[in-house]
């Protein structure tokens, strides 16, 4: 008998004569305490994300590329990793074309193996979109894609993220229902709730453990 057969046989023997427990999941318990009027959702999101050192800027669908250019300049970041294939990547590229002297835009356009050293050692910042956010916990929903791969939101020390104000949801349960997560998940889905942190030494909170040291969120209020 294989290990699988042995384990399953033991478990099944222990359940002889029992019936599976009914599913009485009460969704009110995970939604009612965590629901907000639409006009308060952004405030709730900000409160939670700023409590864990996320830098948040309010902007608009037209103005954000200029804001991002200013933030990159202030931080003296020499380059930005951004996908040229996404709508926001195209918008950013257009702004860059119209304005000289801005930091270099780099694309994640080949498998990581072909440029791992550059990604790790010479890519100081990235920009990704989000699928939305969760107000109750202050979390960004990120589903990596071929255009914006997994490591884009992890390896560069500064991660800029774009969020449309209309896509801030109340709670995790609502998000799972809206996106029908039960019906299928991408290879990797993430909730990101701040820059990376640790309290492993004497419970002292330190930011920039292994992932980004800074998470900068641009909220597009008119979108």
């Amino acid at each position, binding site marked *: 008998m*294989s*290990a*699988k057969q042995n*384990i*399953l046989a*033991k*478990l*099944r*023997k*222990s*359940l002889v004569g029992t*019936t*599976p*427990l009914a*599913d*009485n999941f009460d969704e009110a*318990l*995970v939604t009612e305490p965590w629901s907000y009027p639409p006009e308060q959702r952004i405030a709730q999101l900000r409160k939670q994300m700023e409590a864990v050192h996320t830098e948040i800027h309010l902007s608009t669908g037209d103005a954000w590329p200029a804001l991002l250019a200013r933030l990159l300049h202030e931080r003296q970041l020499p380059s930005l990793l951004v996908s040229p294939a996404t709508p926001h990547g195209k918008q950013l590229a257009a702004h860059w074309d119209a304005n000289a002297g801005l930091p270099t835009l780099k694309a*994640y*356009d*080949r*498998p*990581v193996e072909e440029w*791992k050293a550059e990604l*790790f050692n010479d890519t100081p910042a990235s920009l990704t979109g989000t699928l939305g956010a969760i107000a*109750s*916990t202050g*979390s960004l929903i990120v589903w990596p894609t*071929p255009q914006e*791969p*997994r*490591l884009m939101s*992890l390896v560069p020390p500064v991660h800029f993220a774009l969020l449309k104000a209309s896509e801030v949801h109340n709670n*995790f*349960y609502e998000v*799972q*229902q809206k996106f029908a*997560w*039960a019906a*299928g*998940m991408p*290879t*990797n889905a*993430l909730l*990101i*709730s701040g*820059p*990376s*942190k*640790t309290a*492993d*030494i*004497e*419970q*002292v909170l*330190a930011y*920039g*453990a*292994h*992932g980004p040291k800074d998470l900068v969120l641009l909220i597009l209020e008119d979108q």
Partner: protein
Amino acid sequence: MSSPALIPTVAVEEDFRARAHTALGDKQLRNNFRSAMDSLMTKRAVAFSDAHEREHLRALGNAIRARALSKLPDLLERLEQNLTRNGVKVHWAETVDEANGIVLSIIRAHEARQVIKGKSMVSEEMEMNHVLAEQGIECLESDMGEFIVQLDHEKPSHIIMPAIHKNAGQVASLFHDKLGVEYTKDVDQLIQIGRRVLREKFFEADVGVSGVNFAVAETGTLLLVENEGNGRMSTTVPPVHIAVTGIEKVVEHMRDVVPLLSLLTRSALGQPITTYVNMISGPRKPEELDGPQEVHLVLLDNGRSQAFADSELRQTLNCIRCGACMNHCPVYTRIGGHAYGEVYPGPIGKIITPHMVGLANVPDHPSASSLCGACGEVCPVKIPIPAILRRLREENVKAPDSPNQVMRGQGSKYSRKERLIWNFWARLNTSPTLYRLFGFFATRLRQLVPSNVGPWTQNHSAPKPAARSLHELAREHLAKQDRH
């Protein structure tokens, strides 16, 4: 920078009592634990400020875990089917040796030399670092706390905060000695040193190993929570990802994760959520540019099916590994995690370890509790830890020939003498004549109680009976009243 030595060797020479005694005398250790546990208790209390909400959520958490266990074999098969469909290879192991064999064979198939590990208590059960090191494979911990204890050849003293027994000064000396960096007690700088060393390792590693917080049967998803980003690094950068987990970690639906996640992060650290919730449902697809080419899941039994066989002990498997029971335990707070001498310390350790190593190997664990009930009160999935501890005390002294043997190594504290004394005591208390006779002689001969009554008189004065029993006094009192 020299690479750290990799063989964790904690000397576990003495027994539990001796280790506990030593720990109680270590002022620094007690200080470190006291302050950490106080802070963790406060953070949890703040995160659950609404008792009504908390209690309803705990009840839901308990119901979800109980439901999952009530159909565990079916859910495991469903999990395997869905993971396989998603391209994840699922392996089953009854023992830690089998699990290590599986991990080794995957590593060998890729001719891998370097393994980077996210936090995983199951890999601690397997002593994976040690096993791989013996085969000449470097297996480096990447969680900051785990990295620190590995560097000092120790084991974790807490399941969530592995290096909680050390203060910043101790970490500073360790980094200075082992990594050759300048001495600094500044926590930010210490973390940046760890980041530098480990970034190099994430970059180089051939295989990444992680644990699993919840395995979702419905979608074939492995969900991992963490704050540091090392878990994402370990499961995303190396070409091969091996997740190891216990067979009990499966839940039925994706939505079941919602309350469990909230219970887990609030109970563990008082956080509404961790920085990263990483949901892995498959390896890199052809059109994707990163992520592991292969994802493996090793499902480990290691005694869990034994706990599963008994409906009371089965509740042990509700555990979502938040550590709240240890944070609130007066015993754990005073002796720390290492005194237990096993992978899982504290209240949950005392009830899960006997199934893994045999009760006879941890005979003092069920008794190392004041039964104050704090662990059961804070458990987010309502495991009745105090009741299970009492049950294990019974199993500990069960006669070897009695029926209903439920666990390996039970009955190791059985003593014929003790059993005879208890039988006599039961008889004495159920026969009125014997009870009166005993009361009469015990009070009249009270001066004969020796001043040294073995272990009792180490900490107490000798138990000298009163001059008259309560029964006698009551009778005299009633007789007096009748006369008036």
